[in-house]
């Protein structure tokens, strides 16, 4: 009887210990921090988590939880948990456009000065702006991103055209590989393109966090480019389903002489399409008007700290580690994602391995930042639902339609 009782007690204790371990809490003084992030295909985000775990001297362990592949699904997964005040989100990868929304909803913690000052030090201005809302730092820029115009030197004579108009004309006249790979599906990528076009033409989508911009002339010019492209032979027949990765694939398969895309295509072509890689050239993102600014898109991830975390201090510390010089180099060289730390661009060795680094840094000086608004997701939805597919754009009425839908979106109204 006694021994039975003893083993029963033993079993209960053991079960309790197992349960505590499952709870992701403290095992032997070591805290488990949950890092929810885009599962960057080269694995560099996961590798950074492991590296920081090692460097923490056993104080914390970072558990990597992969999010979906496109920004919309990543946001949905996070938002669903955050709205329910889930304490298991310690650190998360946030697309640069979420800062205002997440901050306003109090889903992320503002960075305390001691950590914020460390993040600001040596970080490029453009990426830093994307992590700031109402003068407070809400996230740490982990990587930046911008699109370049990639082209095939074996098909294009000399420098590629500088404006969208000429680029579309040039590609349309080509006999071989006459496509330009652009993102045109009903998703964030279409808003990215539209934002760059309207800013390049001198306009803005929003005039402040809750006011519609969309001035007549620049908006008209932007939608004209999109409509022209959508109806031209330079468009991929599947344009209305094209996202970044589909564009990359079509380019690697040799269908296109041009593609507008992020630099992740560089390491990918190197491994997957050596023939194309041999002749791969790059140039500045096209502009709407000759000599005008190109306002290339700025993207990237910022690390945010969840507002409901039980270990805020450690989370800030770990998030800082996850964007260290060493980790940012790995994001860039393995994953193709441009760094946010200025010093890395000045390193000659980096320039050698990342030959378009200088161009990227120049584009990041004057990028096409998407509007900061707590209702950005709705605004973006209104834009891409109105503009994609490009070939259906009615250039006479679309500007008014855009204004109406964006203004509804800013009031949380209208079906989108």
């Amino acid at each position, binding site marked *: 009887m006694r021994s039975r009782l003893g083993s029963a007690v033993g079993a209960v204790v053991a079960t309790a210990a197992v349960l505590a371990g499952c709870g992701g809490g403290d095992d032997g003084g070591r805290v488990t921090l949950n890092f929810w992030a885009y599962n960057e295909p080269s694995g560099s985000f996961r590798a950074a988590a492991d590296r920081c775990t090692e460097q923490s001297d056993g104080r914390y362990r970072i558990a990597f939880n992969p999010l979906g592949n496109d920004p919309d699904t990543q946001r949905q997964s996070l*938002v669903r948990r955050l709205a329910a005040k889930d304490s298991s989100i310690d650190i998360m990868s946030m697309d640069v456009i979420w800062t205002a929304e997440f901050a306003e909803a109090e889903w992320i913690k503002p960075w305390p000065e001691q950590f914020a000052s460390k993040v600001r030090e040596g970080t490029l201005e453009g990426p830093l702006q994307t992590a700031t809302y109402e003068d407070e730092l809400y996230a740490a820029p982990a990587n930046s991103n911008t699109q370049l115009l990639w082209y095939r030197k074996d098909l294009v004579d000399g420098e590629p055209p500088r404006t969208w108009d000429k680029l579309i004309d040039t590609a349309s006249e080509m006999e071989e590989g006459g496509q330009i790979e652009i993102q045109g599906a*009903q998703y964030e990528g279409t808003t990215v393109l539209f934002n760059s076009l309207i800013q390049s033409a001198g306009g803005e989508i929003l005039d402040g966090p809750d006011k519609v911009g969309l001035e007549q002339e620049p908006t008209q010019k932007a939608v004209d480019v999109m409509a022209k492209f959508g109806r031209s032979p330079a468009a991929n027949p*599947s344009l209305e*389903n*094209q996202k970044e990765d589909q564009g990359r694939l079509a380019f690697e398969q040799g269908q296109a002489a041009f593609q507008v895309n992020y630099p992740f295509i560089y390491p990918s072509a190197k491994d997957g399409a050596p023939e194309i890689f041999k002749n791969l050239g790059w140039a500045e993102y096209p502009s709407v008007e000759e000599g005008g600014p190109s306002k290339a898109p700025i993207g990237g991830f910022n690390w945010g700290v969840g507002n409901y975390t039980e270990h805020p201090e450690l989370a800030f510390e770990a998030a800082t580690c996850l964007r260290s010089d060493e980790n940012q180099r790995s994001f860039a060289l393995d994953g193709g994602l441009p760094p946010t730390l200025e010093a890395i661009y000045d390193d000659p060795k980096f320039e050698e391995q990342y030959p378009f680094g200088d161009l990227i840094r120049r584009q990041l000086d004057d990028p096409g930042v998407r509007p900061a608004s707590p209702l950005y997701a709705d605004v973006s939805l209104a834009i891409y639902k109105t503009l994609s*597919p490009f070939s259906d754009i009615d250039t006479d009425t679309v500007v008014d339609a855009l204004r109406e839908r964006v203004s509804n979106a800013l009031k949380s109204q209208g079906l989108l």
Partner: protein
Amino acid sequence: MLCAPAIIVMIAVTAYPIGYSVYLSLLRADLRFPNDNEFVGLDNYVTVLSSSLWWNDVFHTVVIMVVSVALELVLGMLLALVMHRALFGRGLVRTSALIPYGIVTVVAAFAWRLAWSGTEGGFLAGIGPIPDDPLTDTFWTYVVVIGTEVWKTTPFMALLLLAGLALVSDELHEAARVDGANAWQRFWSITVPLMRPAILVALLFRTLDAFRIFDSAYIIGLNGTNPKIETVSILGYNQLLNRLNLGLGSAVSVLIFLMVMLIALVFIKGLGTSSPGAQSR
């Protein structure tokens, strides 16, 4: 009194969520601004019902529903007859016919999408009349979505019909045969009328299911990015999970619920007026 626990459970899992959705649909409620909820009456319904997007999506949904259920009925009936008549390997026939129904919808939808998608290397793209990227073509997208639905749920239809077939007695068939009725006449004048209740139940189940279609249209529409195949459920999902707009999203959900009720009502009235004996001669 003894059924009280059951009633409490039913209220907790059905009545409360439905009631809460109806309540939310009367609010301007956005999860991003949890403190700004306000009562707006029927505004959300006006917004939804006056939006062309809603009616487009209703149209898409009805097209998928009608075509896929019609095909399923015909194919399901054939399958049921085969299963009913099979003399050898009856168990094998039934099991293999049921396999598609056992596959998770999301997996089935991905299998179909990957088989058809031009950009994702589908082997069917570009064969014969099929365009290079069928999933960008409206007609072919519907073919693929409806194909997925039919492939997956025909076994379910067949199973319900099989139960109905078992009710038809062999003596009636033999009598008809003696009177000189051919196979088609026997099927149409004896089997179908006697099976009518089973057919209607099968149709009701499938129609309700088909109206709420989400998974396959979402995945074959490239994660909900293809507006040509957006269904009402995807629309509701977008309002609720993309925009976190609980008010509008709940209004969409309640409207879907009402339409499902309407469909059920039509069917049940149909069922009520047709007792098996009354129709057969």
